[in-house]
């Protein structure tokens, strides 16, 4: 998100404004009130006496409420303003806003207070892709209420705006003619209600005041209090940790189809259910807030694909990629109802299920989701491996689908070292690692919980055969790393990328090959000094501000660090962890989705990526997985395992009240001096 915007959110509802609090959507400014992938307000501009107030400061009190302090000034230097404005806004299925104007002068003042409003009801895809509307916009005024609406056949969305003071109400807004005595104030409150797909059900009962409601404050306090307490001697880490917990709370998303909330992917473009994002974020945060994982697994299980549907890239057993609820999806111009074009989500679902059970001891969920887990395993062999060559590969079935169905899902991410795009179907290397890991993990579940030793033996055997095959077929001996992918002609895609780090997380790499990959990961070509670049600077497609071809993604680096620990590379893992945390500190505790891949030797700070989402779920989860890595936290199904490897500048880390199968336990770690190590 741009530093010039202020965002507040709650579930799938969010408001993006400028620093005055105004919404003024343009092709380049994505301001608005959004719900269910639709923009319900695109214009909300306050003028006082014909002047747009100037911002003095912005107080972001919580993820769902904000205050703007402003002055009405002509901008003339040395002339004090006698009018100040305080705007208090709180999001809740729309938002509530109170505008208070104070006259600090010695004389009364007459003012026109005007609020200009409007909505384009743009689908988020239209906002991103600058598309035109098909249906009709309308507005009406009734009994002091302004309704802005949009209708296309039976797709109806409305924004209902009420004020608590009588003024002149027009279809483009509200006008109040106000007289404020000397040293006095005047205020007006607005209730903006977004009526989405469940409007008639959600409107049952009176609408409560969001500004007065303290339940979300209490819920946030309980959420933070329920997570382990961190005491770190490197002070920025305390701030980063708290910010991660609060941002995760902000991104919690109630689907309504299962109890609890799962993490939405990120603001502003991805405030929706994304399988991969929810699964990876849940993995990162499992040691801290395991309830997110349970909700994620159950929700994704319910919407697991049941049939073949080329438009949606759906196949039985597959875990979804994305659900959208806007107009373009409703009229099937887009396939996200739901869309299943993710080749990794199904394996990640299985990996998370086993990780969750081992961490929490909750074997009931493994029994509850046995049918879905078996369907997911069947998908890997029956559909994931499209051509029966022993590897999972992907290729969209229709043009509306995603070209790349791995986490690097931009069009140009899978390229040869010379920059040539690899033809589909593409079998990216990390997918094979996930299959290996998922099969071994499910073998344990089959053996210990499903009472199916035959399945367990088969899965273990298949995993080991895959490992042997993979280390033979994907290895590039002349460059000493694993190919990014096998392309549609079974050629090795030979560019050096961060994907090899995921092979360490999954454990598929042979030890001596892993060692060679670690040298690449820590080389100047891949390690920028702030994290691991998505693509090495030596490759033909490298671009330090290319979305998946050179930027650093904090979540990617956090999983690579976790993988390095798995293979025993403690110092290398610690080095990456430290870099990520130092980057987080420079982003004021909140890591963005991605940042530039420029070398640290050139920049004293990580360079922003222009359209990065922030907060973004798996970037928010990155510091949590980093903490787990630094302390070496793991579970053997009964006990908390602790094996710290902390770089010296981070000093001492105490993580208290870690939830798990053991109940609650504390973990301590401190950096060793070189002489102690």
């Amino acid at each position, binding site marked *: 998100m741009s530093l010039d915007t202020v965002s507040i959110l709650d579930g799938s509802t969010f408001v993006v404004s400028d620093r005055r609090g105004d919404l003024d959507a343009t092709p380049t400014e994505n301001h608005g009130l959004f719900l269910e992938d639709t923009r319900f307000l695109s214009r909300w501009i306050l003028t006082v006496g014909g002047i747009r107030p100037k911002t003095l400061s912005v107080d972001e009190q919580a993820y769902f409420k904000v205050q703007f302090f402003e002055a009405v000034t002509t901008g003339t230097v040395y002339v004090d303003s006698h009018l100040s404005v305080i705007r208090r806004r709180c999001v809740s299925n729309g938002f509530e806003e109170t505008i208070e104007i104070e006259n600090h002068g010695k004389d009364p003042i007459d003012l026109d207070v005007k609020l200009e409003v409007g909505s384009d009801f743009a689908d988020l895809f239209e906002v991103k892709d600058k598309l035109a509307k098909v249906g009709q916009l309308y507005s009406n005024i009734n009994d002091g209420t302004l309704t802005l609406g949009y209708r296309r*056949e*039976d*797709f*109806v969305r409305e924004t209902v705006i009420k004020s608590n003071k009588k003024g002149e109400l027009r279809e483009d807004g509200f006008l109040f003619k106000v007289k404020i005595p000397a040293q006095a104030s005047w205020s007006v409150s607005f209730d903006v209600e977004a009526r989405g*797909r*469940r*409007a*008639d*059900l959600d409107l049952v009962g009176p609408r409560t005041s969001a500004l007065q409601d303290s339940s979300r404050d209490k819920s946030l306090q309980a959420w933070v209090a329920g997570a382990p307490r961190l005491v770190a001697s490197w002070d920025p880490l305390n701030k980063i940790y708290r910010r991660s917990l609060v941002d995760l709370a902000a991104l919690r998303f109630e689907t*309504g*189809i*299962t109890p609890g909330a799962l993490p939405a992917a990120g603001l502003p473009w991805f405030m929706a259910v994304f399988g991969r994002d929810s699964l990876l974020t849940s993995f990162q945060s499992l040691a801290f807030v395991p309830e997110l994982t349970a909700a994620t697994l*159950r929700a994704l299980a*319910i*919407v697991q694909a*049941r*049939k073949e549907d080329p438009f949606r890239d759906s196949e039985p057993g597959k875990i979804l990629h994305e*659900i959208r*609820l*806007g107009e373009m*999806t*409703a009229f*099937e111009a887009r396939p996200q*109802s*739901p869309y299943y074009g993710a080749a990794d989500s199904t394996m990640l679902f299985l990996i998370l299920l086993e990780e969750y059970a081992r961490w929490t001891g909750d074997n009931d969920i493994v029994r509850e989701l046995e*049918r879905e887990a078996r369907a997911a395993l069947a998908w890997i062999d029956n559909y994931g491996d499209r051509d029966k060559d022993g590897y999972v590969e992907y290729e969209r079935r229709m043009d509306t689908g995603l070209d790349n169905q791995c986490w690097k899902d931009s069009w140009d991410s899978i390229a040869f070292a010379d920059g040539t795009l690899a033809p589909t179907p593409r079998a990216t290397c990390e997918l094979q690692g996930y299959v290996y890991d998922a099969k071994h993990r499910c073998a344990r579940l089959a053996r210990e919980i499903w009472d199916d030793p035959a399945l367990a033996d088969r899965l273990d055997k298949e995993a080991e055969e895959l490992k042997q095959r993979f280390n033979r077929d994907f290895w590039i001996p002349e460059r000493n790393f694993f190919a990014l992918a096998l392309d549609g002609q079974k050629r090795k895609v030979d560019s050096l990328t961060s994907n090899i780090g995921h092979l360490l997380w999954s454990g598929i790499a042979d030890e001596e090959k892993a060692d060679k990959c670690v040298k690449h990961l820590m080389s100047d070509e891949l390690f920028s000094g702030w994290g691991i670049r998505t693509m090495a600077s030596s490759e033909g497609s490298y671009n330090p501000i290319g979305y998946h071809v050179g930027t650093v993604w904090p979540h990617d680096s956090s999983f690579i660090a976790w993988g390095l620990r798995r293979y025993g590379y403690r110092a290398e893992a610690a080095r990456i962890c430290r870099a990520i945390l130092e980057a987080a500190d420079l982003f004021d505790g909140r890591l963005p989705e991605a940042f530039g891949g420029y070398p640290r030797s050139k920049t004293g700070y990580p360079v922003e990526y222009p359209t990065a989402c922030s907060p973004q779920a798996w970037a928010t989860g990155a510091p949590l997985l980093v903490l787990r890595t630094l302390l070496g936290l793991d579970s053997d199904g009964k006990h908390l395992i602790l094996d710290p490897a902390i770089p010296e500048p981070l000093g001492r880390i105490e993580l208290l009240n870690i939830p798990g199968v053991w109940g609650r336990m504390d973990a301590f770690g401190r950096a060793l001096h070189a002489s102690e190590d």
Partner: protein
Amino acid sequence: MANESGEHVRGHDWRGGNAPGLAGVYGRLRLSVAGKPVATLVVEGTYVAMIPDISGPADATVLFADEEVMRKLLKGELNPFIASMRRQARLAGDRGFGTRVMMGLQVGSPFAADANKGDQS
């Protein structure tokens, strides 16, 4: 449950039968058209049937805008997410169960063939 083979509801002969997509799903789903309850779908694993009960216990209720929407959803012809986005159908109660049933009927519905038999156009 095996005795409840199907009913004549709202002018249609809804015969129960096999619905492979409902494997592992059990419960009762009330069907309501334009605000009025019209029947209950009884789901027992891969077997599903419609009964005329409108007042007995139900785990969830699906509210259809009209009969055409109900017909299409029960026959598995209309994507339930799209129906929800277009305010053609909504779920109340245990929405997880309701979603499982609506998605499960997409795979193969015993109503797909039978639902047309009683059409009164």
